[in-house]
């Protein structure tokens, strides 16, 4: 008899992926005032995958729990996750403070233990800091196997087969639960959430806790010295004929 699967999906609230971020006046980070925030797209894919697995394995999957470590406004993305089919959720309210991947992983480890999760599905990276570390660090802290950058996930009993996108092709690996999976872009295409589900989600549990409830004190190890824009591309030139194009290219010694 295979064991019941309890899925944990960590989700992060980030500046909307479709917006062009702007650097703040003090050059210490990205301007966040008056900017739209949404769920990190990779986390959205993780939620979608968890729900898909539950739908396909109704018997085997006992629950999906979502957790967000962030400001109180991250409740919005937890509601979205609940509407998409997550059962329960926790916000670890750390206020406006930016948290490094190692601290996040330590908190997640506590949540995993508390919820007795045996499958963690999370984004391979958050589009704001692009760290691509949390999943790996969590696997390290827990001593679990990890399958990163998943583009396909198949669950069979206690075993999970994951296809990963690697340079020049695909790699297929298999591991026994418990397991960490980080999601890549092509894993799935998240669906729109319909109104009845949004309404139901309002009644689903969303508990709010402070990080010290897990006995974790947040200590930052990195200091941001400066954030700057990539150098602006110089403007292009328009040419009106092929001859002009050729002569311009010759001028630039490109021909």
């Amino acid at each position: 008899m295979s064991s019941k699967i309890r899925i944990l999906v960590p989700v992060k609230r980030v500046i909307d992926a479709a917006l062009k971020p702007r650097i703040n006046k003090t050059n210490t980070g990205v301007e966040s005032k008056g900017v739209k925030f949404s769920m990190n797209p990779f986390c959205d894919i993780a939620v979608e995958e968890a729900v898909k697995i539950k739908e396909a394995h109704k018997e085997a999957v006992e629950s999906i729990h979502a957790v967000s470590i962030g400001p109180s406004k991250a409740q919005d993305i937890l509601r979205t996750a609940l509407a998409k089919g997550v059962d329960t959720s926790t916000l670890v309210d750390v206020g406006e403070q930016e948290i490094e991947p190692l601290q996040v992983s330590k908190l997640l480890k506590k949540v995993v233990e508390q919820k007795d999760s045996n499958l963690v599905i999370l984004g391979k990276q958050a589009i704001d800091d692009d760290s691509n570390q949390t999943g790996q660090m969590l696997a390290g802290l827990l001593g679990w196997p990890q399958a990163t950058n998943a583009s396909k996930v198949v669950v069979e009993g206690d075993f999970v087969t994951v296809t990963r996108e690697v340079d020049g092709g695909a790699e297929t690996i298999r591991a026994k639960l418990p397991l960490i999976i980080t999601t890549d872009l092509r894993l799935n295409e998240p669906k729109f959430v319909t109104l009845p589900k949004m309404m139901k989600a309002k009644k689903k549990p969303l508990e709010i806790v402070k990080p010290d409830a897990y006995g974790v004190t947040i200590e930052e190890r990195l200091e941001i010295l400066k954030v700057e824009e990539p150098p602006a591309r110089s403007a292009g030139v328009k040419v009106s004929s092929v001859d002009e194009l050729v002569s311009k290219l010759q001028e630039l010694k490109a021909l």
Partner: protein
Amino acid sequence: MLKLVFRAGISKRAYSAKAVKLTVETYPNLQRGDYGTLEESDLTRFRSILGDSSVFVDDIEGYNEDQMRKYRGQSQVVLKPKTTSQVSEIVKHCNDRKLAICPQGGNTGLVGGSVPVFDEVVVSLSGMSQIRSFDETSGILKVDAGCILESTDQFLAEKGYIFPLDLGAKGSCQIGGNVATNAGGLRLLRYGSLHGSVLGIEAVLPDGTVFDSMHSLRKDNTGYDLKQLFIGSEGTLGIITGVSVLCPARPKAVNVAFLGVESYEAVQDTFSKAKRELSEILSAFEFMDRESQVVNKKFLKAPHPLAEGSDEIPEYPFYILIETSGSNKEHDDAKLEQFLETSMEDGTILDGTVSQDEAQTRTLWAWREGISEASQIEGGVYKYDVSLPLSKLYDLVIAARERLREANLIGETDEYPVVDPVGYGHVGDGNLHLNVCVRRYTKEVEKVLEPFIYEWISQHHGSISAEHGLGFQKKNYVHYSKSDVEIAMMKDLKRHYDPNGILNPYKYI
């Protein structure tokens, strides 16, 4: 990156490789006006005014064909002036030589107004695309007429402002073209018409005189408000070279909901309710029939937002897109949520979704904005853009469908010219778009539809052109919406300012 990014206009020439029929072949009764014909000496003059690189005589098919591939002219030359005085000199020369001119913006117009009919000289404004100034306190923007709507709006977004007009063709259409057609678009409900937001215009009159009201103020009651004449004049009174517009602050919080309802009555009920309950944050209210979604799915090639991942489009006969814009997200979210919940509970709406992020917002809009382009992927489209009393709005689509069916023109296979008529539009403004999607343009279909549709609209006290204008398509049908006195005054005006009739002939009135 993640979701499909929709941009109108880019795939313009992607579908049918068939050559577009010449307008004069489609309408053999057309007579060329008593105009001069282009000579080598004219080209020399144009080159001396503009320089060689702004006078085009080769590869100009794109300027002769319209966006719907319905009309094709035979112009021999395209001019791209860079300054107002160049426009003035060109126009003066054309007037002296009695050469007819077709002013052209982004060529996204939907009534055949933007392309020549015979051999008119095309004056394209695309070489004039500088932002002249922006006042960050008043929100007054001054631009060259050739500025693209979308890039202008992006410029404003950086400053915390928004252009008071938005429409599906934003990636290609120009501010000058928008003003020339008095485009209405998706947010008229919120920001009103260009007659209100345009503060000043610079235009070159048919004799080359420069009309300049760019310095006008928000309030200015000194005589006739002449700039209004150019708004919606479709290139028949002057070539617009500059526009001054009052731009509102860009809303910080925008939500988009996409809903399914069971009838056209439910569309109206939802609209009344939205006005009452969303009031000041309601910024767009669009409706679409299911047929339009079927057509759009072939174009977008993605699952429908309410399909929950399945490949089918749910069976709701009508869909609604609601946009709210405001300054306080929590307030707007709460209001919209309350509105949607009570509407679900009382059965006004049957299902729906709300965008969770910007990519979803764009996808939801694509299911509305894509219809225009999607309508012609099978070959072509007959477009009718009408104003009607709200309660009668959709009856026109039903009447047209019925009539095409009776004539045995609609079918699923290639022998039938018509694919399906679809209805959608800006319900908020009483504006319906009826698109009759066809596999090819035929006289048969046109005869069944026209003047039937115009008569129907006239009987129901509507307007035969709500926002797309008259252009070539509706020139002969103005009397269905305007009285003899009105038409006579319009003709007087045209004759007075353009005695030689050189600006955009064969069109408008």
